[in-house]
């Protein structure tokens, strides 16, 4: 049920994620009276303009410091480098914060965000909307209730040629963004794995960074229950974009971003069952609707009608795992390189890997 007074929203960062995701989601919720976009914040007038056209009644500002924060929902969608500073400022001003993934560039930054939330008593949510996909929720149910038996292994392949419309090269500069594909799409993948399975007992990690950011990486994970998984991520070549789970009595496949669809083949079935996931009332929830669902969870929590599904304490877990990966990093074998090139690659990876 929409609140009597729409929640005022401040959208910080008017780049691609705001244009393609937040703008349509906020437009829908504004039309339903759930919220009201009050202020758009971005230091770039060029970035502000397209969003200002979508929300003509919203104020425009170059700095979050100029906005009134108390009782607002502040959405942080600026580059990750600025997440911690903006989030802490908003929390201290009495706002609820929904911070886009990755929550921060480092665990240390994310911890300061959690401390600020605790000290201020304000809510901090993290934008990991794939947890709201019916397919991901169903997988959690299959893993917990085990109707197909216990999980034995899984493989995850995600990524393709990089297509995100980056507005600058800061996304690819290691001094601005400390990680590549793992810190980008890997945040979602590792968040889902942590949500589904908990912490791995051990992991091996390798990537192809040669002084810069990795474009490919591979993680092997072992879990306390005996399940073993392999994750391969790429922003270089087209992967299958598929998660495959081998249970004792069947196989389940989830296609990346196919929010309400799963493929299941149980023992004894000669064919693959491929179908849509519907609510008991026969409604499908798509990828965009899952994004909206995340926003509704935050606004409902602000009203005391729900609890946060992805609070900051959850958001930081994938960052911790990412830092564990980078700390144990090895160079991926690249067998097409010549002997001399391999030697140079190993040298570059070891001398500049932590630059």
């Amino acid at each position: 049920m929409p609140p009597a007074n729409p929640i005022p929203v401040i959208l910080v960062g008017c780049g691609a994620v705001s244009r393609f995701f937040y703008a349509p989601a906020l437009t829908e919720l504004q039309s339903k009276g759930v919220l009201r976009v009050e202020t758009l914040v971005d230091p770039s007038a060029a970035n502000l303009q397209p969003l200002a056209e979508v929300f003509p009644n919203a104020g425009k500002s170059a700095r979050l410091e100029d906005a009134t924060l108390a009782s607002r929902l502040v959405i942080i969608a600026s580059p990750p480098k600025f997440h911690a500073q903006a989030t802490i400022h908003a929390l201290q001003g009495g706002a609820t914060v929904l911070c886009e993934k990755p929550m921060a560039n480092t665990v240390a930054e994310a911890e300061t965000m959690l401390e600020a939330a605790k000290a201020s008593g304000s809510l901090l949510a993290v934008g990991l909307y794939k947890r709201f996909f019916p397919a991901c929720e169903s997988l959690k149910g299959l893993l917990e209730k085990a109707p197909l038996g216990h999980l034995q292994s899984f493989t995850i392949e995600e990524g393709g040629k990089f297509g995100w419309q980056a507005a600058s090269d800061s996304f690819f500069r290691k001094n601005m963004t400390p990680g590549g594909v793992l810190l980008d799409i890997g945040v979602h993948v590792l968040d889902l794995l942590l949500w589904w399975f908990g912490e791995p007992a051990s992991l091996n990690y390798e990537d192809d960074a040669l002084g810069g950011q990795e474009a490919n990486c591979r993680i092997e994970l072992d879990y306390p229950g005996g399940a073993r998984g392999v994750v391969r991520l790429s922003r270089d070549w087209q992967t299958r974009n598929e998660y495959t789970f081998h249970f004792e009595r069947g196989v389940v496949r989830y296609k990346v971003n196919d929010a309400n669809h799963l493929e299941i083949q149980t023992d004894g079935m000669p064919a693959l069952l491929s179908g849509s996931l519907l609510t008991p009332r026969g409604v499908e929830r798509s990828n965009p609707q899952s994004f909206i669902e995340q926003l509704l969870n935050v606004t409902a929590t602000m009203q005391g009608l729900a609890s946060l599904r992805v609070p900051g304490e959850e958001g930081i877990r994938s960052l911790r795992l990412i830092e564990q990966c980078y700390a144990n990093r090895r160079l991926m074998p690249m067998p097409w390189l010549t002997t001399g090139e391999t030697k140079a690659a190993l040298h570059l990876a070891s001398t500049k890997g932590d630059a």
Partner: protein
Amino acid sequence: MKIALVGASGFVGTRMVERWCLGDHFEVVPVVRSFSSLAVMARFELPWQVCDSMDPSALAKAFQGCDAVVHAAIGDPAQIEKMADSIYRAAEAARVKRLVVLSSSSVHGQAPPPGTDETSPLHERHVMAYNNAKVRAEKILNRLSASGSVEVVMLRPSVVYGPRSRWIADTARQLLDGSACLIREGTAICNGIYVDNLIQAVELALQVPQAAGQAFLVGDAESVTWHAFYQIIANALGIGMETVRSIEPPVFPHPFKERVGNFAALPATQIVLPLIPGKLKRLTKLLLANWQEPTPGNVWKLRPETACTTTEELTLLQQCQWQLPNQKAQAILGYQPEVLFDEAMRRSLEWLKFAGLRNPSTN
């Protein structure tokens, strides 16, 4: 030697960046069109430049301080021609000494007649618009360099394969999904060149003084059929060649939109186009954008597991009966392909494993 590499994010460009960053002889300045093109080269810390490859003044700034430029950018037919002009003018403005251009053996067609070499006259009557655009791009570069200060060297490779190439990845995918096919058993010649051999030719073209003003056909040392090329990939994937269907060359009806596009790209049309009112041009573009090709269907047909996949380009290539010669490149550039075919395929297949392309039933 400091090289500006236009098209550094493509398949050849990516390997060139990798090779030069891991070697000692060339310092590379990658030049790409968009920030998102930086994703793979960002593995290295590099002084990349992001600019429109059809904007001579922006390119000239990107080329500043470079000794030479390598043009490895791809585009549609109109872009191919425009880039040739822009990149040459930018190189001249930046006082670059030499421009090495990745042209294509398709200037002679995908299945050139026996006897074809660099002396064979070029024409613009190819079926494929890409070929004609490459011919026109070479002519533009020859015309500009005849009166300009930048030396131009053009390389004409054919099927460039290796890690990340479509000839490896797409063929593997087609073999895996059962859609691979060969024209007439694949007995035609695959004029392949392993990507490292092409880069070796580029390196020679950058340095050999006598190369200036010349075009060179470049390929691997061996003569290989398409069947042999497919067989090596199929073997690596554990797939029998009996799954690869042999077909007669299909006829490719050129869609209406493509025919209009080809017509619009002709030099004569380009002269006339400015005379057509903008309103009419916009209306035509709108109509074309919404044009639906008729799609006849028949539900009373047995569905094959997967349809055979081929393209017009591949169909033409798989009818080639002539091994394009390397003799001129050998004589003037001193080109001797450094990677032999078996090793080239081994490295390519190792990349397939790296990329995770495998046969699920054999793993």
